[in-house]
């Protein structure tokens, strides 16, 4: 009976087997497993790897430094990448795009440069209970140093936030709200429009952690009207070591530098320095120009395919996996029942089996998933789940990957010594 249903759904999803994008990813030529850990880092298409290599082979010099043609060429590559990111985020100005190493560095930049200088005792910082540690620890630091209180925006077990929870958290004392657009554990979406409206009514700045959303959703910082936004290149198929901070120009202009040193100055005397204008003020030291070129290639690759197609695939495959998991006893998926509300992230527990053991068993079947607390311990504590397994999908995953995963998960309890 179940076999028949699976057969039927397999036929319906036949088009998922024919994944036209998978061949773009060289890793799948040598590694034959089911890669279901894209929320940790995505795989890279050949065009991204090639873009980095091309930079080093043909345009490499220290950007923004030399007056010779090669350095100008390197600068040009780097600034083109900045404009590609500007367009990707629909930002008003290119200098609102600051290149960093990753989301964590972007969030720390805002915490150190904006947070420490704009928050005071009596103020409140609001973070959601869903936050990844990288959007929590910087604000714990700001709270400890400035005396501003840290408040939590609570959520339901599926990650949804009610209007009451919002108005309870965001008050006239709120000066800063830092939230993830998509939870890295539940895949749920935060009501950003409402949060921004409430926060701005109180004169508070909004920082959006887009690490999990930027790879899956089209983003317009102007439409969202956020003050800062951070994401990592490597989660949207770009290289590791390149990340982005978007900041509203008038805010960035007033902020002091985060790191100081080379390439971020206008002039330096023995005792003081005049800092360079945006965006160089926030990009101290030699920049990751090859990484930026790779990120641009990733963005172009994403744009060529289009978010509509990416979401359609992810949603179909997520639904297929969720339906398959419903058939397996002793499995509990965290978050929404609807595929649409998962952003490709499926986090689950298996009764009586620790998440690390589940992940090890899946590994022997060549299924790569993440296990543990997912750097979101406050959320896991709230959900009453100390550790869980996370499978996360992206556009290169196939129904074959999903089947391999479902097959392996269905055997976990038996292989751990439980009877049927």
């Amino acid at each position, binding site marked *: 009976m179940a076999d028949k249903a699976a057969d039927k759904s397999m036929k319906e999803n036949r088009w998922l087997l024919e994944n036209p994008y998978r061949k773009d990813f060289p890793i799948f030529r040598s590694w034959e497993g089911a890669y279901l850990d894209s929320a940790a880092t995505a795989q890279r298409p050949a065009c991204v790897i090639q873009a980095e290599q091309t930079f080093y082979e043909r345009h490499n010099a220290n950007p923004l430094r030399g007056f010779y043609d090669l350095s100008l060429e390197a600068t040009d590559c780097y600034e083109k990448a900045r404009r590609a990111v500007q367009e990707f985020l629909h930002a008003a100005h290119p200098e609102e795009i600051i290149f960093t190493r990753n989301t964590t560095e972007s969030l720390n930049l805002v915490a150190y440069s904006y947070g420490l200088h704009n928050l005071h005792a009596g103020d409140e910082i609001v973070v959601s209970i869903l936050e990844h540690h990288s959007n929590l620890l910087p604000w714990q630091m700001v709270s400890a140093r400035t005396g501003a209180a840290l408040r939590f925006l609570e959520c339901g077990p599926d990650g949804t936030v009610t209007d009451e929870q919002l108005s309870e958290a965001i008050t006239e004392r709120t000066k800063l709200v830092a939230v993830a657009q998509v939870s890295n554990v539940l895949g749920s979406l935060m009501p950003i429009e409402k949060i921004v409206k409430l926060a701005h009514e109180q004169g508070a700045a909004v920082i959006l952690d887009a690490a999990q959303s930027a790879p899956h959703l089209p983003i317009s910082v102007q439409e969202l009207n956020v003050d800062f936004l951070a994401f990592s290149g490597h989660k949207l198929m770009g290289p590791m070591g390149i990340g982005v901070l978007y900041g509203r120009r008038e805010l960035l202009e007033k902020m002091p530098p985060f790191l100081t040193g080379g390439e971020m100055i206008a002039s330096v005397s023995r005792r003081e320095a005049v800092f360079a204008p945006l965006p160089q003020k926030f990009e101290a030291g030699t920049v990751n120009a090859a990484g930026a070129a790779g990120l641009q290639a990733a963005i172009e690759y994403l744009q060529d395919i289009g978010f509509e197609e990416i979401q359609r695939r992810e949603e179909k495959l997520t639904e297929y996996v969720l339906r398959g998991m419903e058939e397996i006893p002793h499995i509990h998926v965290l978050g929404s029942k609807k595929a649409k509300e998962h952003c490709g992230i499926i986090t689950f527990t298996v009764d009586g*089996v620790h998440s*690390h053991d589940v992940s090890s*068993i899946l590994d*022997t079947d060549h299924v790569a998933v993440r296990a*543990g607390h997912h750097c979101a311990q406050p959320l896991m504590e709230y959900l009453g789940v100390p550790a869980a397994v996370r499978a996360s999908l992206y556009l290169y995953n196939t129904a074959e990957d999903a089947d391999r995963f479902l097959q392996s998960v269905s055997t976990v309890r038996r292989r*751990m010594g439980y009877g049927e």
Partner: protein
Amino acid sequence: MENRTFYNAVLTEHNLHPMYKHDLEDADFTLEGVNPSCGDHITLKLKITDGVITGGAFVGDGCAISQASADMMLELVIGRTQKEAVRLSDIFLRMIKGNASEQEIEELEEASALRDISHMPARVKCAVLGWHTMKEILKEASGTADQ
């Protein structure tokens, strides 16, 4: 599709039906061992009389490897001298690193079921948690005995 795992029958039996996972009220030594990166933790309790481990138990929470390994360890060392327990834990720790002889591994009795962990670098710290905790206790115990 289904491949052999290192979760063999001995390991899963110790995990699902541990003999020594309970409290021990009149313990002489109690020590907590934690793997901060994965959250595995155990509280190990030992009774030691005249240099001999006369009783032992543990409570804790964590993956099957960490919990089964502690249970196997207690099964092996209870009734043995402290010195013998230290020698056996050294063999175990070497086995996990892939540096123990067949003859030595045989001495570990059921704990030898964890030998394949040597191919699983990510899980080594799970397997050795109980053993490191016991070695710490034994170090303390021999210190007090010397005084």
